[in-house]
């Protein structure tokens, strides 16, 4: 988005306007206005916002670590350990209780202490045992783990709560979508811009590179790249996904730059002495961004889809990792535990659907042909 200063007052008086013109809207506010009119698109956007909130608040929704506690006269938030384990390791309460928290243990160690607990006392990575929370039975395992009052969405064969894993898995899903598509967008926009702007041998070279990456089926390249890494983490998956999914964006960007570099305003900018980098990034890029926004949104959907597929195939990051695909993998091993298929499957489906809907609505909102028709 670019900020534009208000148009300067004309130096010479123009023809007197018969009627004051309404203030013209900027391009993006016009897009937003058209986007808002689509009910499904707005609904999808709300879903993503809600999912982000769940991801952000996941340790407070389901967990076994206090959200906030006052221990030995100090405020501490062990639940942050779900985000970064090191943060929790440094807290005195974590060291004292060896990371096993319960109201009783807390009181034992410091009678003065008190804590705010997550809404659901369940852990996404391990089985909660009996009386870990006073009076609460341990998680059932195997076929016993069907959805119940204590485990709303059931438990895995090893007794891990499915609801807690889904809630914490939303973090992985969001992160994968944004980080890998961010990497893809960065590579795609840069290479596409260079190829389109300079043309010549650079264009030939980069176009070949795009074709090479496109030529290998995505899953083949991803599996080969992931297999090279010794111990896969979710970050490896994200980088590999980013490295393999930039071609569509690059091709679109190249086409936009080819078109825009011939425009008069670019010529004007050059005539005013703007450097190449300035012309590329300040003048052309903002105008070329709208068309790539759509493939970027669809890219987020496909990144989430592929990450879960990889986890499902066993090529993702190994447990403990709350990826929804890991749950599906367990569901495939023990098909009779239908709740291991239904709930994570629905989560993946809804998320992919939401991003697809957003992409589709954006496409309609930014399509110049439809804009002409609306006038």
């Amino acid at each position, binding site marked *: 988005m670019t900020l534009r200063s208000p148009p300067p007052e004309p130096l010479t008086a123009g023809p007197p306007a018969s009627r004051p013109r309404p203030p013209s809207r900027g391009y993006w506010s016009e897009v937003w206005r058209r986007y808002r009119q689509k009910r499904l698109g707005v609904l999808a956007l709300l879903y993503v916002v809600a999912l982000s909130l769940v991801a952000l608040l996941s340790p407070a929704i389901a967990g076994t670590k206090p959200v906030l506690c006052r221990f030995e006269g100090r405020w501490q938030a062990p639940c942050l350990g779900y985000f970064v384990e090191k943060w929790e390791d440094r807290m005195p309460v974590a060291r004292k209780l060896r990371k096993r928290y319960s109201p009783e243990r807390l009181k034992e160690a410091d009678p003065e202490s008190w804590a705010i607990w997550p809404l659901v006392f369940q852990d996404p990575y391990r089985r909660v045992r009996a009386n870990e929370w006073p009076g609460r039975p341990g998680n059932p395992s195997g076929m016993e783990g069907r959805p119940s009052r204590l485990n709303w969405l059931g438990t895995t064969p090893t007794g891990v709560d499915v609801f807690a894993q889904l809630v914490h898995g939303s973090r992985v899903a969001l992160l994968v979508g944004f980080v890998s598509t961010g990497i893809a967008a960065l590579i795609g926009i840069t290479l596409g811009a260079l190829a389109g702007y300079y043309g010549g041998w650079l264009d030939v070279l980069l176009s070949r590179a795009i074709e*090479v990456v496109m030529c290998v089926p995505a899953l083949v390249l991803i599996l080969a790249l992931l297999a090279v890494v010794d111990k896969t983490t979710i970050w490896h998956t994200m980088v590999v996904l980013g490295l393999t999914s930039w071609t569509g964006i690059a091709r679109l960007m190249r086409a936009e730059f080819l078109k825009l570099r011939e425009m008069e305003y670019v010529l004007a900018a050059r005539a005013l002495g703007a450097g190449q980098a300035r012309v590329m990034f300040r003048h052309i890029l903002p105008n070329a961004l709208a068309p790539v926004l759509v493939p970027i949104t669809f890219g987020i959907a496909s990144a989430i889809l592929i990450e879960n597929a990889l986890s499902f195939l066993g090529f993702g990051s190994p447990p403990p990792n709350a990826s929804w695909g890991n749950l599906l993998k367990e569901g495939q091993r023990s098909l*009779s535990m239908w709740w291991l*298929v239904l709930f994570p499957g629905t989560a993946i489906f809804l998320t992919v659907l939401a991003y697809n809907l957003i992409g589709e609505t954006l496409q309609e909102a930014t399509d110049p042909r439809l804009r002409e028709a609306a006038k």
Partner: protein
Amino acid sequence: MTTYLLRRTLLGLVTLGVVTMIIYGLIRHMPGNPLLMAAENLDPSRRLTKEDQERMLRAYELDKPWYVAYVRWLVKLPRGDLGTSFRERRPVLQVIGQRVGPTLLLSGLSLLLTYLISVPIGLYCTVRSSRLDERLTSVFLYILYSLPTYVAALGLLVVFYLKLKDTPWQLKPGMVSDDFAMLSFSGKVQDVARHLLLPLVCYTYGGLAYFSRFIKANMEEAIRQDYIRTARAKGAGPVRVLILHAFRNTLIPFVTLLGLTLPGILSGSIILEQIFSWPGMGMLFFEALNVRDYPVIMGLTLMFSVLTLLGQFLADVLYALVDPRVTYT
């Protein structure tokens, strides 16, 4: 046209060279090698000694650096020699050839179904545009389009394999039952159908939804054109206008899409074939990757890449065929 073909072929060969080199370099850098992967599965008493391992590495030419091995692989290629599978100890071409049938059965049928069903749906949605039934169909298609195949596949397995167990409606994973050889001909057909149905549905529905939406979107644009009004004005019937005038003109993007589906016909689907234990190409690739069967991985990669390039080329040629305005020089 000849120069275009020549240039296109040369560029394609260069692309193929780069692709295979990258993949060769990557797979040779994966941890583990075919010997270790196989030996790990054997009992510890039969584990290879160091000398044995080195001897076998030499025999398989795995002791050489990857670029040397790649060049050797490349040199043998023009003779149609893709090497020998480490795991099955048979030529790669044979190993791949064995898997072509199942994948082709699945993808061929699926493609046929996709076209047969999506064209009528697309046309129907165009005619009934913005009525209730069209809206419902469109929403349903969109849901199908966004439903991940592996989720659908698992869901269908739970219902049709597990919940319907011991009923005549049960459908099974795998390609044939254990007693397949003993069945009569009609029994064999029934047995394959029983195994084929679930993967076929999963293989088809995504493409079906995509194609229907694609046709509808193109038709919406076509029926607004002036020549449609002309056709109506001269008295052509609604069916004639819809099919001969409007649909015919949407064939151009449709045909391009056809070229892009070519690699999918032979590559199969890694995930679906794995879920349904369908012995096709995707499954072969998955297995080969897991046991580090380099020659098979390379053979499959080469095949996928050639098909992708061919598909793109075919799309361009078909484009010129259906649209006389496009020529290549």
